[in-house]
């Protein structure tokens, strides 16, 4: 797992993807920080975090699009799958590499907190709550992105399909409100990534939501492992 993690981290930076990702993330969160936090003269960064949901939704597929698809296309998966390591090591190595880059990007909020500290008082409880909420959200989204990437050989297709998948997950709330059957509506709402995330930005640290995001990450990584395994049998 370590070898794959290090290779992917290296590849993020040599390919320039890491710089693009970090720049775009900083730029957009900076805009939301400027207008939502500085502009409204508040020291609470929650509004920035809630706006970032949709940004994360579109940025994470860029991070994960080539993780599995390129391996298959360039036949480098033959090197990985015939090496003496398990499928979980392959998937998790890639997963944690993407997650690390996401955490680096997200940690830019601590720079913003310096600006707040200059003019007022940082609301650490709210900031850390939001920070971890976004981390858990990213953890789940990255697993979804890697899973979609494992289904195709084309990284563009992988990116677009991941964005669509995440967008549908985002729309679960609005879709659910149009459904009359209460059980289905309840089921859909309980699977909503958005409402669970927004809850954090409103100051509620819900442990069940944490479990939800981590479970989602686990399940999608498990699906990826199954896809790799199934390919050998087909």
């Amino acid at each position, binding site marked *: 797992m370590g070898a794959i993690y290090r290779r992917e981290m290296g590849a993020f930076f*040599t390919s320039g993807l890491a710089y693009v990702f970090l720049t775009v993330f900083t730029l957009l969160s900076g805009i939301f920080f400027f207008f939502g936090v500085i502009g409204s003269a508040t020291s609470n960064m929650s509004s920035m975090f809630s706006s970032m949901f949709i940004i994360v939704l579109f940025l994470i597929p860029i991070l994960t699009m080539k993780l599995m698809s390129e391996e298959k296309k360039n036949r480098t998966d*033959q090197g*990985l799958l015939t*090496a*003496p390591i398990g499928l979980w090591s392959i998937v998790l190595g890639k997963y944690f590499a993407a997650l690390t880059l996401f955490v680096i990007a997200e940690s830019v909020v601590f720079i913003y907190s310096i600006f707040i500290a200059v003019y007022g008082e940082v609301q650490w409880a709210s900031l850390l709550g939001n920070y971890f909420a976004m981390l858990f959200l990213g953890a789940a989204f990255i697993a979804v992105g890697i899973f979609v990437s494992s289904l195709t050989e084309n990284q563009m297709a992988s990116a677009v399909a991941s964005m669509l998948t995440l967008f549908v997950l985002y729309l679960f709330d609005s879709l659910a409100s149009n459904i009359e059957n209460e059980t289905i509506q309840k089921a859909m709402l309980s699977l909503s990534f958005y409402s669970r995330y927004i809850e954090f930005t409103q100051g509620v640290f819900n442990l069940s939501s944490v479990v939800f995001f981590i479970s989602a990450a686990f399940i999608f990584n498990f699906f990826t492992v199954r896809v790799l395994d199934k390919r050998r049998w087909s």
Partner: protein
Amino acid sequence: MIEVKNLVKRYGDKKAVNDISFTVEKGEILGFLGPNGAGKSTTMNMLTGYISSTSGSIKINGVDILEDPIKAKSNIGYLPEIPPLYVDMTVDGYLNFMYDLKKCKLSRKKHLEEICNLCKISHVRGRLIRNLSKGYKQRVGLAQALINNPPVLILDEPTVGLDPNQIIEIRTLIKKLGKNHTVILSSHILPEIQAVCDRIIIINKGVVAANGTAHEIAESITNQHKMTIRIEGKTHTKADKDEIVNAIKKIDGIKYVRADMEREKGIYDYDVETDGKTDIRRAINLMCRENDWNILMLQLSDLTLEDIFLKITVGDVVPEDAVSKPSPELDISVQDGELIAEEKLSLDKDKKGGEE
């Protein structure tokens, strides 16, 4: 070292590999020979655990590849048809990655240095793989397979795309490796297999068509030896010819003799066939000495591997068959920018059914 039993791989209805069994001993270089699409790569992919078999068992060093894949894979170095190279890495970065991936315990610096020297890539270690020529990429692929000194090496068409000099180099390298490793090597190039391998398995349409040394395979197909001899008589006339034919006929073990064309003025070639057991070369020599004739040429025309290959993979009947059977109808389609021509199988079958 490698034990393969009743290996089957099915893709839908099609059996890519159909009941292949063989064993490879330690320190042996085994050649897989077969036309394109015979099932060589599929077999190798199953041996290395890249794909799973539909049924049958594979044991590497006594470990079943499905029961304990990680342990079995740690005994294998694999160079697939397309080397699994990350083109965005340097050679050094890539080899270090493979070193970590294979959990190699040997001294990193020394081991990688040795491998690079062996594959002659020491001077390109700092370069991006993307910028290397095909030959160098192939060598990096081979270097990658050698990391961690696996007892079994599986090389899928290792010389494809190389220039003649490089081919000879890689062959010499494989021969050298064969002393300490068990090697399986696939190719559709006959001289290569003949030059490098101790034993040959010919695969055709997913089954083992022949298994043995080149010599053994040749013997199993034919039990005669043929040779062409050019003998100079004393008078340089047709009388010579008859005399020589009669003399050859008297030699033990001769089954058939025939005077061929007049190759030089008054000198003829003689086609001779033996029973396959007797070596008649000395007897011929003696005959010529006694009669004061001169042997100008003696050429064995045993089956070459090429003949064997054609015999096995195409079959003896092909010439007649090709005449009576119309050329197959083709389904031509474009896929991934490549032109693909496929025989219309179902149609063909229907026709055959009709004829029967």
